[in-house]
């Protein structure tokens, strides 16, 4: 048992670090995970694309890096170290792997390069108003008509659909079988007539998610992934893929450092807040949670490096990862005291400079926004169901 990196790993780390230092534009550094524009996100995407590093998770033959799990872990550490922007997951981490695993030759040749280059921005058509955690309960219907499916229904919580060129959708193609067995996986051009997008404004005043309405949308049959009515298989594959990196350890470490910095600056009782016993304790408890999470993540990673597939025990990473993230935003709100209260975002415009310290801007909206993390991707309650059934056999 050891934590040692091989000399090759260390050389890889040095290479990555040098590249990031040299190529990540200063204004995109420092962990600006929200409030990035489409342009910002694409700028970074294209820098990585040119380097050939935009798809660390993909096999080499499809344009990925072919990195092993340890290298991907180092990559995550180094990007978090500098606070580079996130990559939008829907193409790279979600539909991409589905396409290269289950797609036809034509689908691979057409879509994968466009995902890699950033030409197509994807979004995800999974959730529906009536089907949240019970994903298979979806009701969007696709009816075959010659070479097309005619799709009708509504998707919701569609993140960044306002920027998207393509959407991958689960649709119902057979109502008379078990609900998991009548689902088909379609790739749909967002410019197809009949698609409309309506913003959902979230608690933090932000516009990140949307309703997507589909009305008599004609989708060519060649846009179907795999077989008709087998969509649930591909959907589950995608969800399993989505799970990796879900612990968010590197980012939470960065946020923890920020929090400590704030606590060193804020005053409480005439002394820095970080000398306040109660606040110290809360930070320490959270840091220990994060260490435990990190090593649970590393154990999963080490198992993956030995070729073991991720099991349902990764639900721990989702549960504890999101709990840590939420708690970090909560403590940051506490740390800034009254200055969590000014609200400069949303419809009232935010062209003015900050009220109070820079680091207090947006901490409350971030706290509100992060509530979503224990809801999306299968609520934490669902994750506990998974653990109790699949791991503990209850």
């Amino acid at each position, binding site marked *: 048992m050891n934590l040692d990196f091989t000399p090759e790993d260390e050389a890889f780390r040095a290479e990555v670090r040098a590249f990031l230092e040299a190529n990540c534009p200063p204004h995109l550094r420092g962990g600006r995970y929200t409030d990035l524009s489409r342009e910002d996100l694409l700028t970074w995407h294209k820098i990585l694309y040119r380097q050939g590093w935009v798809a660390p998770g993909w096999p080499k033959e499809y344009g990925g890096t072919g990195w092993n799990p340890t290298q991907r872990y180092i990559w995550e550490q180094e990007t978090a170290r500098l606070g580079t922007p996130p990559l939008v997951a829907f193409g790279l981490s979600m539909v991409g792997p589905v396409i290269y695993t289950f797609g036809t030759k034509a689908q691979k040749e057409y879509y994968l390069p466009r995902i890699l280059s950033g030409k197509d921005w994807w979004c995800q058509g999974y*959730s529906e108003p*009536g089907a*949240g*955690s*019970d994903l298979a*309960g979806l009701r969007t219907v696709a009816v075959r008509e010659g070479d097309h499916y005619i799709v009708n229904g509504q998707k*919701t*919580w569609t993140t960044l659909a306002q920027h998207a060129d393509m959407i991958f959708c689960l649709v119902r193609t057979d109502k008379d079988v078990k609900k998991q067995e009548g689902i088909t996986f379609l790739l749909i051009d967002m410019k197809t007539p009949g698609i409309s997008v309506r913003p*959902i*404004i*979230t*608690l933090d*005043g932000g516009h990140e998610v949307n309703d997507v309405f589909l009305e008599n949308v004609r989708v060519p049959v060649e846009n179907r992934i795999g077989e008709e009515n087998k969509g649930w298989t591909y959907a589950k594959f995608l969800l399993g893929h989505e799970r990796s990196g879900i612990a968010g350890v590197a980012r939470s470490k960065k946020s923890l450092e920020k929090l400590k910095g704030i606590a060193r600056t*804020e*005053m*409480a*009782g*005439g002394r820095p*807040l970080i000398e*306040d016993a*109660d*606040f110290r304790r809360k930070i320490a408890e959270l840091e220990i949670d994060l260490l435990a999470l990190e090593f649970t993540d590393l154990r999963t990673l080490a198992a993956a490096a030995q070729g073991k597939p991720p099991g349902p025990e990764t639900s721990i990473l989702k549960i504890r990862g999101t709990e840590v993230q939420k708690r970090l935003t*909560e403590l940051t*709100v*506490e740390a800034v*005291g*009254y*200055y*969590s*209260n*000014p*609200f*400069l975002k949303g*419809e*009232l415009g935010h062209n*003015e400079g900050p*009220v*109070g310290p820079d680091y207090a801007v947006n901490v*409350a*909206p971030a*706290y*509100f*926004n992060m*509530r*979503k993390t*224990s*809801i*999306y991707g299968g*609520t*934490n*309650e669902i994750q*506990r169901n998974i653990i109790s059934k699949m791991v503990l056999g209850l």
Partner: protein
Amino acid sequence: MDFSFTEEQTLLRNSVARFIEDNYDFDKRRAMIRSPQGRDPATWAQFAELGLLAVPFTEEQGGLGGTPTDTMVILEEFGKGLVIDPYLPTVVLGGGFLRLGGSSSQQAELIPHIVDGSLILAFAYAERQARYDLNDILCTAKKDGSGYVLNGQKGVVIAAPWADRLIVTARTGGGQRDKGGISLFLVDAKAKGVSMRAYPTVDGQRAAEVSLENVSVPADARIGAEGEAFPLIETVVDHALCALSAEAMGLHRRMLELTIEYTRTRKQFDQPLSKFQVLQHRMADMYIHVEETVSTCYMATIKLDAPETERKAAAAAAKVQLGRAGKFIGQNAVQLHGGMGVTEEMSIGHYFKRATAMNAMFGDVDHHLRRFEALTQG
């Protein structure tokens, strides 16, 4: 020993509840918040008409001679309705300073205007370095002839953009964190040297950063004796803590009700969410927290007239309770609403935001725990 309400109190509660139902629904509230002014002055005029602005003042002062329990009843209903109007700054805080510490001429001059709705007050006390310590004050008031000249910065002054007058804490003596040497001043919000940067707050109110630069006030702008305002500030803030606790009662109960309603109708896996035992127990725990908020609110309200240590400990306990219960209830209410819980369109999120903001007001859970410890553990 009696925890029931008088017939008058029940009538008062009903009239506030009816007003909110008729005039303060989700869309109307949103429209007020989004309006340039951030509130609807007609609401305030109706508060005056209903007598709500007169409640805590004695009959001699032109009020209704209400008790802290009457104020509690009003604030509880405000909590259910997410009222944004400046009742706490104007009536509880401003009115409290005048009632309990103002000279008879100050009372005679100002209380009638509070009562008739023509005077809005804001309490400017917080300073950047002070966090939640009411005694940590850098703002100065220097004697200048018979009056004073004020200089300093006050932060996150709730309702300041709406206020006609500010009540400002300033040092007439002592060091930055001394409890002696603190004085209170009435300052005209439009006085020369007063400038504000106004902004909305996360919970839909308005506040401002207030800067005081060589602001001259006459001697009779001072509330109470020079340098001896701190006990009065503590007393009035304890009244405000009780008012917040009452608001929290309404807020917490409404969050539970909304969650029960939502989980009863929302189905997952062909069952209403309310049928899942884990969520049932979560709501049972939310209910326990609600009842504890109620219990500590009653305690603190009843003890507002108790000896100082008892009053302070009870108020601190109520504030701790509203903070931790607000977090538990609010976070779980949002979680149980699922995706809907994080949208602007559902009211639950707005309750959650108010609960979050309330936790910081006049000191968070940690602050009041420490206060409680000092009072109960020596």
